[in-house]
């Protein structure tokens, strides 16, 4: 599955990523981080198309994006 990892300690809660995500996979999580910012969280993981728009707009480089790729040849062992 495609996924993003949000570094919640780095996230400043600007929510530009929420605005950018075409699939509404990101939302506020309501709990402050150590710096007192309210970071975002990744939801609806199944919808993520790994477009990386969230990461592209994040001024704080808090998001790493992973795209699911089929494993060559031994595709049957690929993770769900």
């Amino acid at each position: 599955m495609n996924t993003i990892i949000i570094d919640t300690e780095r996230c400043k809660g600007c929510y530009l990523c929420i605005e950018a995500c075409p699939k509404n996979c990101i939302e506020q999580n309501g709990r402050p981080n150590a710096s007192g910012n309210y970071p975002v969280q990744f939801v609806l993981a199944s919808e993520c198309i790994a477009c990386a728009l969230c990461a592209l707009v994040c001024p704080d480089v808090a998001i790493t994006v992973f795209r699911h790729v089929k494993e060559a040849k031994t595709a049957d062992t690929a993770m769900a």
Partner: protein
Amino acid sequence: MSKVIFERPRYLCDKVTHYCAGCTHGTAHRLVAEAIEHFGVGEKAVAVAPAGCSVMLYKYFDVDSVEAPHGRALAVGTGIKRARPDLFVFTYQGDGDLASIGLCETMHAANRGEGITVIYVNNAVYGMTGGQMAPTTLLGQRTTTTPAGRKHDNEGHPLKMAEMMATLEGVLYSERVALYDPKQIRRARKAIFHAFEVQTKHNGFGFVEVLSACPTNLHLSPVQSQKWVENEMCAAFPLGLYKDVTAKPPELPAATPEAEVNGVSQGTCHAV
């Protein structure tokens, strides 16, 4: 299995920046760091920091850097580049720094066609000092020193640097971009990359004006401030390419021969 398709670029230090939430200084930093990596100049780059919110860029870029007095980044950059033509020199300056107090240094370094890449972050206010009027503040825009909004008959008009740069013979490339949405960020990335190439390939002066949001001093939310850049700033500062003569670069003075470069730099600096 999964593959990383977006991660922190190599030359952006793994630190939380001091920039406000939603400040696109961070985005501009990332794009510059990507360019440093792409062009392989990380081991010969010197960044010149301005006075402004980006004064602490030495903490964020994993390359050599020097802090210039307010506005003088391009004079400092000139000194570095003249002493060591083999180094990759870029300045990163705000609008107050580059277009107000440092306008003279900016125009002359550009006019001499120094082999320097300029990242000019125009956010229409003085961020660091608390939101006073900048040379780029829009007509009617309220700031802490234009409480009733900027008026042209008192404060003049917003200064359009990308256009001004394009008029100078020494400038090979001048473009204005923005960071308010993914499409603009991609265009900005391309422009910054091109400005790097202007130096790596043509040893020329490349200028990118980046329209940037300062949510704090606009008193808007980060999302709203991006809209403000899109709707208000872009109306006053049209995005686009203002000059690119790299396809047919003008006759540049002969490059300093390798031997001389060494004589001036390594040789001199260690022998005396």
